[in-house]
């Protein structure tokens, strides 16, 4: 009997499509971000072919923008790589969070999923597993969401690279990306621990915005997670007390 490839499984394909559908509403935000990143790369003085190559291969908007001044100034490659690593540190937290959900998959599948991880798709995936736990074919769902984001981002980023002079930066397009993230964040902040985490993380990021390569963001996330855990413990204790009192009454 021949083993059927995983991607031929109708259930796998269904989850793939579900993933695409889940990522669809964020597309306007991704379009805006892609355009702005592409424009910024060329306007900073990067040659068009290199801008396209970096966009396609690196696929890390914030790291690409943060390293632009270094690249243009002709800094050695290892300085640029280090800066890209530091700017992308929040993804270490993302992959630490995703790890347990994908540990049973093959090494190659995990490498692919890792490469495609983005801010939007990470938040969307975590929300889905929070609701449903270890659902079947979650690799397909994640790949669908991430793959769709990748295509949208690459197309618009390359449009931005090629049409850089035609797109004025004062349009403030990238704010559409922020608004898409906002729509993902609001439901998470309707619970006390999430709200506390955000309330601690955000001011730290604002106050530490002067730190190089988005280190302030990383510090904010770490502090925010600690705050969320603390509030979660308090909420949990209070729930347990209410439960106990209820049990005693009944």
């Amino acid at each position: 009997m021949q083993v059927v490839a995983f991607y031929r499984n109708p259930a796998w394909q269904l989850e793939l499509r579900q993933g695409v559908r889940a990522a669809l509403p964020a597309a306007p935000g991704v379009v805006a971000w892609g355009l702005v990143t592409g424009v910024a790369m060329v306007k900073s003085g990067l040659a068009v072919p290199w801008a396209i190559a970096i966009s396609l291969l690196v696929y890390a908007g914030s790291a690409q923008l943060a390293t632009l001044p270094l690249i243009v100034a002709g800094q050695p490659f290892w300085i640029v790589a280090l800066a890209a690593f530091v700017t992308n540190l929040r993804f270490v937290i993302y992959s630490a969070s995703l790890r347990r959900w994908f540990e049973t998959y093959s090494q190659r599948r995990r490498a692919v999923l890792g490469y495609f991880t983005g801010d939007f798709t990470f938040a969307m995936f975590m929300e889905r597993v929070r609701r449903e736990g270890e659902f079947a074919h979650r690799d397909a769902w994640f790949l669908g969401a991430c793959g769709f984001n990748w295509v949208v981002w690459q197309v618009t980023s390359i449009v931005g690279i090629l049409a850089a002079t035609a797109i004025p930066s004062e349009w403030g397009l990238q704010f559409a990306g922020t608004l898409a993230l906002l729509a993902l964040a609001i439901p998470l902040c309707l619970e006390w621990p999430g709200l506390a985490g955000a309330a601690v993380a955000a001011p730290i990021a604002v106050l530490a915005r002067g730190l190089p390569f988005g280190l302030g963001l990383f510090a904010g996330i770490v502090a925010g997670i600690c705050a969320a855990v603390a509030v979660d413990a308090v909420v949990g204790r209070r729930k347990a007390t209410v439960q106990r009192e209820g049990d005693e009454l009944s």
Partner: protein
Amino acid sequence: MNVNMLLVTIGMVLATFMTRAALLLAGQRFKLSPRVEAALRFAPACALAVLIVPEVLVQAGTVNLSFDNPRLAAALAATAFFLWKRSMVGCIVVGMLVVTAFRFV
């Protein structure tokens, strides 16, 4: 061929790939304590907050908490709309409309 740009590109690919995939690839060899694992469920809320709030509040390098900050007004309007309709696209549209309105007023 620009050798330095080639090295820069390869360096950036490796650096960003490591941040995103190293722990995923470590798989079962990298087990976090159950407490840390549980704490990470709050990572999305915190990560989104640090990505959003500075973009909304910081205007030309300084924090602007007043309503003449177009992005703050837009974010509040978008939040209200999202809480009402639960639509991400609507949230984006309302926010961008408010920001654009500020430009023309």
